[in-house]
């Protein structure tokens, strides 16, 4: 079995999601990495030190400055005949490109895989994680996205894999990248953080989120939020944890003022330790928390912050 993993990166560095995808791919067979980008030599140079890679394909070309699915999918298609499996991390980019590639190859996408049974058989959550389906693919090339939190990260080593340059492929002029508005913050990335502090509608306002942010900063944690808090406009949409937002599984997840709607639980219930702070002692969040505190978050969160050195 030969597996190609599509690297997730920002042209400067490999993003952690790639490392989860590589480790998942190792369960299938020989793993190659494909780095597609522009001015991304650092990504290629660090990518080929990921432990256990066979080789690193790369296409370093200005037409791939931004990962437009139309262009990336035809490029991956051009090398696909050498592979039995093509793995993406289930990130916004992965979700955008993988199904397009699958349709080009006339194969069915296998999205959001959480467990690999064998090279044809996989487990994936359906109905927002309220059920787990075991699926078997009969396609000769399987296009897969993996839920990063379900797999450990591959590590970097000393040994360098061979690098092979791939020529750019057909480019569309029908889709143009214009700009990005990325939230700037110093905190770790939500899906990669060891600790996540999340707030819900109970915070009541954008300003009140500062109480949680102080706690997050003391813990070196990422900030998250429930859909209710995002919909209310308290925080940006990329903070949303849940079925339709991000799926996280940190070592510690602190939920403050979050009631625990099914769709939120779907995004965080695989966290190792869950703390819930909510003044409503009947809130469903307490059915999944390891440590629950039925108290006013405006009092409890600052107290907790003070106790942390």
């Amino acid at each position, binding site marked *: 079995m030969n597996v190609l993993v599509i690297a997730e990166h920002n042209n400067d560095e490999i993003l952690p999601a790639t490392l989860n995808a590589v480790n998942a791919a190792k369960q299938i067979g020989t793993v190659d990495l494909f780095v597609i980008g522009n001015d991304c030599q650092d990504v290629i140079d660090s990518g080929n030190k990921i432990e256990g890679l066979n080789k690193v394909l790369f296409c370093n070309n200005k037409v791939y400055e*931004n990962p437009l*699915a*139309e262009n990336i999918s035809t490029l991956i298609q051009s090398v696909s005949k050498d592979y039995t499996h093509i793995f993406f991390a289930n*990130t*916004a980019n992965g*979700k*955008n*490109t*993988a*199904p*397009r*590639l*699958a*349709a080009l190859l*006339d194969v*069915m996408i296998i*999205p959001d895989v959480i467990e690999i049974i064998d090279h044809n*058989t996989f487990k994936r*959550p*359906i*109905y*927002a994680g*309220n*059920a*787990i*389906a*075991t699926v*078997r*693919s*009969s*396609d000769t090339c399987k296009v897969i996205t993996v839920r990063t939190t379900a797999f450990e990260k591959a590590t970097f080593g000393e040994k360098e894999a061979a690098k092979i340059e791939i020529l750019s492929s057909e480019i*569309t002029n029908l*889709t*143009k*990248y*214009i700009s*990005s508005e*990325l*939230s700037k913050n110093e905190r770790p990335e939500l*899906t990669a953080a060891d600790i996540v502090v999340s707030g819900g509608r109970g915070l009541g306002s954008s300003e009140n989120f500062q109480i949680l942010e102080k706690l997050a900063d003391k*813990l070196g944690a990422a900030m998250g939020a429930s*859909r209710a808090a995002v*919909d209310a406009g308290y925080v940006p949409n990329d903070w949303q944890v849940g079925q*339709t937002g991000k799926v996280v599984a940190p*070592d*510690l997840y602190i939920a403050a003022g979050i009631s625990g709607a*099914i769709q939120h639980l779907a995004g965080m219930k695989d966290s*190792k*330790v*869950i703390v819930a702070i909510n003044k409503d002692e009947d809130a469903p969040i*307490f059915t*999944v928390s*390891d*440590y*629950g*505190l*039925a108290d006013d978050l405006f009092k*409890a969160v600052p107290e907790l912050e003070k*106790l*942390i050195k």
Partner: protein
Amino acid sequence: MKILVPVKRVVDYNVKVRVKNDESGIELDNVKMSMNPFDEIAVEEALRLKEKGIASEVIAISIGVTQVQETIRNALAMGADSGIFVEVNDTLEPLTVAKIIASIAKKENIDLMILGKQAIDDDMNATGQMISALLNWPQATFASKVEITDKTAKVSREVDGGTENIEITLPAIITTDLRLNEPRYASLPNIMKAKKKPINEIKVNDLKIDITQKLEILKVEEPSKREAGIMVKTVEELFDKLQNEAKVI
């Protein structure tokens, strides 16, 4: 401009789903079914483009058993002009759905297709991207804002870390994210009017598309349950547990 909006009939989002005892799937008997919430957002966006005079016609399409016509009627009651019903009794996967919709889009000379980014039943998040690959159209997935002028659409997309803005040339595919709009409710007079709107029936056999599934579902099971832990009385106790028992801070 003609807009095609694919809509899917799914278990209502308020229903707590139950896995069947024989693990063959989800219990669907006597369960409330509704239009996939992301598809409602797609219908709404198409209607707004029509109300702005940008679109001339909004067509809703659904594929499946005879009851999916109710979902098409919902779209008509919201304001879509007509429907297309493709009757299929077998379970279909996104690749097949994409092939069916792509072939109809070509026949109907569709300029823009708006659909939900994912269905809340199988959570595939694939059909839009697949249709656009098959038609070789541009795709703007996870849209939170759409502006159309002549033959181009400026779309803001929700991506990891924020928003990305792209421009696509029509014909094209847009898939909707949650914050694109707030879908309207169908008013009673519009529900009545919708009953008279045409739904064009298409037999899947006439389309000559292979509907065999390539991804077979072997089993559907309950996820592992997370046990509830303990309630602590004070912040001090919580801090102590996190530090000395869980050892996470």
